């Protein structure tokens, strides 16, 4: 009875609050590696650096690069990303990614002063291509050297844990620079990294059109008020792109904002 009461309490929460709980939970799970036996060879569904002293899973982008450096393709990583994508689409970006959660926090701090940024959905695919090409050409995990998520979740925690360590080189400062630049830009443009630059978001976004979990639009209920598009942190411009665009993180802010309840989370949606 007590458990049932708790489940009812959870389901009664707003989508935004559920998302915050889920993001905090995902961050806690990402750091389970503080127990050494829980440092596993699994693949994380979001961008969380395996260089973090407490990392529980491998970063898919980091692992893919390491295998490219070895002259191989990580079949395990691609398969796992396929499973995540087929089940959830890009929902992990909206509901679990700790770096995305930092962006949400910055959006909260900024309030209503949102910059209307252009929608260059393809830039993340250019970054993804550069990740692969740079690893192949330089025979090094080049993207990891500049990744702002790695700065926040690996470089800074390592610096805090080992302040007397002498080996920090120029790439440590490049890391900090990319992090500062991303945070500043994310303050003005909501979900800046996720929108334009995240190579993992690019992969996950490909699955939005086929994912089991998605957002369904009931066209009969929709009166075209576009409140959903105003609520969208990813800058989606058309109602029929909700849940289908490679930018949509299935965060559900549109579902919550819709006054006509025309949008809903669904499994195996039939029509849009």
């Amino acid at each position, binding site marked *: 009875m007590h458990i049932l009461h708790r489940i009812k309490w959870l389901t009664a929460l707003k989508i935004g609050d559920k998302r915050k709980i889920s993001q905090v939970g995902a961050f806690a799970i990402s750091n389970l590696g503080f127990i050494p036996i829980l*440092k596993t*060879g699994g693949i994380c569904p979001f961008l969380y650096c395996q260089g973090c002293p407490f990392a529980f899973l491998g970063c898919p982008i980091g*692992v893919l690069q390491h295998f490219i450096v070895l002259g191989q393709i*990580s079949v395990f990583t691609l398969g796992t990303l*396929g499973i995540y994508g*087929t089940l959830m689409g890009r929902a992990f970006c909206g509901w679990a990614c700790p770096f995305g959660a930092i962006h949400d926090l910055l959006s909260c701090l900024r309030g209503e002063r949102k910059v209307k940024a252009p929608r260059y959905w393809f830039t993340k695919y250019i970054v993804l291509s550069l990740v692969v090409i740079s690893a192949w050409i330089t025979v090094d995990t080049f993207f990891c050297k500049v990744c702002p998520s790695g700065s926040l979740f690996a470089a800074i925690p390592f610096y805090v844990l080992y302040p007397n360590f002498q080996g920090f080189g120029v*790439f*440590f400062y490049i890391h900090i620079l990319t992090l500062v630049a991303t945070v500043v830009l994310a303050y003005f443009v909501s979900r800046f990294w996720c929108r334009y630059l995240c190579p993992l978001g690019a992969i996950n976004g490909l699955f939005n059109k086929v994912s089991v979990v998605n957002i369904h639009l009931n066209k009969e209920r929709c009166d075209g008020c576009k409140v959903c598009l105003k609520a969208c942190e990813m800058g989606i411009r058309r109602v029929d792109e909700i849940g289908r665009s490679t930018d949509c993180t299935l965060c559900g802010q549109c579902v919550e904002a819709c006054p006509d309840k025309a949008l809903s989370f669904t499994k195996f949606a039939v029509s849009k």
Partner: protein
Amino acid sequence: MADLKRGRRVWWKALLLLAFVIITILGVNEYPTIEVLVRIICTSCIGLSG
């Protein structure tokens, strides 16, 4: 009609999921390598010199 469409869609998704499960199983021998990557300190990720 909607039920038929829904049924087809479920099948496609199930097949896709099955394909990725098979790919993952085929690559399971990579697990120990990835485990090593998670356990060691990644010099690229934290910007160590040398």
